[in-house]
């Protein structure tokens, strides 16, 4: 192609479509590992959470964690999967020092979840399957600037080996980086809501690989590249956009896209090919003889169904409808674990002394910044305290500004807002008689200003009124109810 860049760009948007499918690995939030009783913990001293089983010692045998089955059924419900009568584990055989047995115990052609879906902003994304497997250990590469192939040697820590993972594989149903990002967001919110994972990308408890191809609209799927090492939603979107451009450029130059694994380089902002393999992989899958099939009982299925929480999609629609909040507010509320629940309890506790929208305002601003600053979970805060605060503002006891300080102290010291207000003597003067007397005093003492107000133009009027209002507040030590004070001042000035 010899087009200029401009026309090429124009033709791209016209002709080319990105096709994205995602493989998401989620670490399940169990107490112990998948097949042994070692704690499933992040950040322990290297090689301290290991036993004969997860270290793959000769003679050791796996036994499946029952909570993992329950979690898988929850995932099954949440994403409308088929959960077959029977599913089994296979061994995936390959050598790697991170993998203690040199095979991974994983599900293959009989996984626990099949054919589900997730609606993302009105578009249905198919989910091919979700299966259980064990995580590997972790190595650090020394020398060579931490890069694996230049390293002089590597050190292996098996604490993560055997941690339960669920691999959730979507259909190639997404058509843009934004859609892919939103899919992961929605997936995370749902997984969080059903309590199966803490979905922290930065701790690696949620990892995304992206299969990306491009095609002319209406054509068959193109050859895809698999992109690994995307560690945040932002890099996911960047990597997809980069691949989109790279593949189109290749195709427009008349080259072919190679089916390969590529790694996202965050610093350089590009993807790079992995090491090319001498021979194709051959994992020699066969049924894991040390484990027996999973066949979820009707009782367990019923129990899981009955204990499913409201899912984020449904909750969002309900909150928008019932509370009159907007999409953005609902999004903020749902993307922090526990925040929506916190707000819901606070709304109940309001008891008419304010609106849900007030609660959401406080929750998504002041409460959320406190949560982010301290790293605390909203579940640890008392929503009744927020409700009390909203009531205090609603009935005019304190101003919005005062309320901000009161909330900060209330969160920090776990103190009731009423108590803080009375301790600090913050209650507003809302008594009309007292306020009226104060206004009268101020007007009497500032007759010249009143006179200037009366004869001045709009600009002067505004300035003088502001001055008089300030004097009134000063006289009331800042505790006058501002709305009331404004009305009384205007009434008296008008009266002359």
């Amino acid at each position, binding site marked *: 192609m010899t087009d200029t860049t401009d026309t090429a760009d124009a033709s791209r948007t016209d002709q080319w479509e990105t096709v994205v499918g995602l493989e998401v690995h989620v670490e399940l939030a169990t107490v112990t590992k998948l097949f042994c009783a070692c704690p499933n913990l992040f950040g322990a001293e290297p090689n*301290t*959470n290991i*036993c004969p089983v997860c270290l793959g010692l000769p003679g050791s045998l796996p036994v*499946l964690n029952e909570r993992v089955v329950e979690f898988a059924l929850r995932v099954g419900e949440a994403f409308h999967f088929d959960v077959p009568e029977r599913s089994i584990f296979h061994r995936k055989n390959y050598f790697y020092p991170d993998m203690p047995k040199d095979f991974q115990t994983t599900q293959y052609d009989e996984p626990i979840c099949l054919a589900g879906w997730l609606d993302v902003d009105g578009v249905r994304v198919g989910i091919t399957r979700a299966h259980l497997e064990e995580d590997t250990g972790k190595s650090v590469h020394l020398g060579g600037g931490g890069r694996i*192939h230049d390293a*002089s*040697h590597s050190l*292996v820590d098996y604490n993560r080996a055997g941690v339960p993972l669920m691999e959730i594989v979507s259909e190639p149903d997404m058509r843009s980086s934004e859609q892919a990002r939103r899919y992961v967001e929605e997936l995370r919110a749902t997984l969080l809501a059903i309590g199966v994972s803490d979905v922290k990308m930065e701790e690696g408890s949620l990892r995304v690989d992206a299969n990306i191809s491009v095609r002319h609209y209406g054509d068959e799927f193109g050859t895809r590249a698999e992109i690994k090492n995307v560690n945040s939603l932002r890099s996911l979107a960047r990597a997809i956009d980069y691949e989109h451009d790279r593949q189109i450029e290749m195709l427009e130059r008349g080259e072919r896209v190679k089916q390969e694994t590529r790694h996202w380089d965050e610093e350089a902002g590009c993807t790079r090919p992995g090491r090319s393999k001498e021979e194709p992989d051959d994992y020699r899958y066969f049924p894991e003889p040390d484990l*027996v*099939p999973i066949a979820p009982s009707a009782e367990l299925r019923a129990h899981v169904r009955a204990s499913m929480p409201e899912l984020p999609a449904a909750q969002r629609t309900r909150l928008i409808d019932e509370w009159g909040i907007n999409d953005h507010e609902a999004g903020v509320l749902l993307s922090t674990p526990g925040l929506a629940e916190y707000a819901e309890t606070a709304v109940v506790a309001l008891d008419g002394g304010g609106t849900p929208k007030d609660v959401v305002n406080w929750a998504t601003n002041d409460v959320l910044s406190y949560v982010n600053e301290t790293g605390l979970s909203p579940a640890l805060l008392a929503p009744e305290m927020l409700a009390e605060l909203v009531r205090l503002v609603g009935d005019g006891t304190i101003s919005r500004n005062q309320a901000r300080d009161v909330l900060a102290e209330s969160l920090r010291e776990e103190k009731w807002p009423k108590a803080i207000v009375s301790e600090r003597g913050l209650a507003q003067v809302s008594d009309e008689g007292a306020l009226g007397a104060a206004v009268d005093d101020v007007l009497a003492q500032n007759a010249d200003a009143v006179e200037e107000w009366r004869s001045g133009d709009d600009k002067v009027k505004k300035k003088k009124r502001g001055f008089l209002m300030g004097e009134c507040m000063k006289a009331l030590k800042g505790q006058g109810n501002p709305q009331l004070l404004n009305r009384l001042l205007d009434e008296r000035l008008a009266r002359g």
Partner: protein
Amino acid sequence: MSEPGARITRAEVTHVARLARLALTDDEADSLTRELGVILDNAARVSALDTAGVPPTAHPVPLVNVLRADVPKPCLDRDEVLSQAPAVEDGRFLVPRILGEEP
């Protein structure tokens, strides 16, 4: 049916040795090509039986749902484990540099 003992080529033997991470000598590869051919001839007798429509048995016990409560137990002592390792650094297992990538 192929020639007796000719079920596997030397190239296949070399390929399989790579999959199995065995650094075979040339002599070993030669004799394995011969021996595996003979053994596979015998093994191939299984195809003499009509197994169409017969389900495979992976396992002789008809158990399902053997599960463990999600309750932690003490782990191994790290020093005891590392004392068995060929090479250790910083509480971790030391290996030479890794050429291949994790799939």
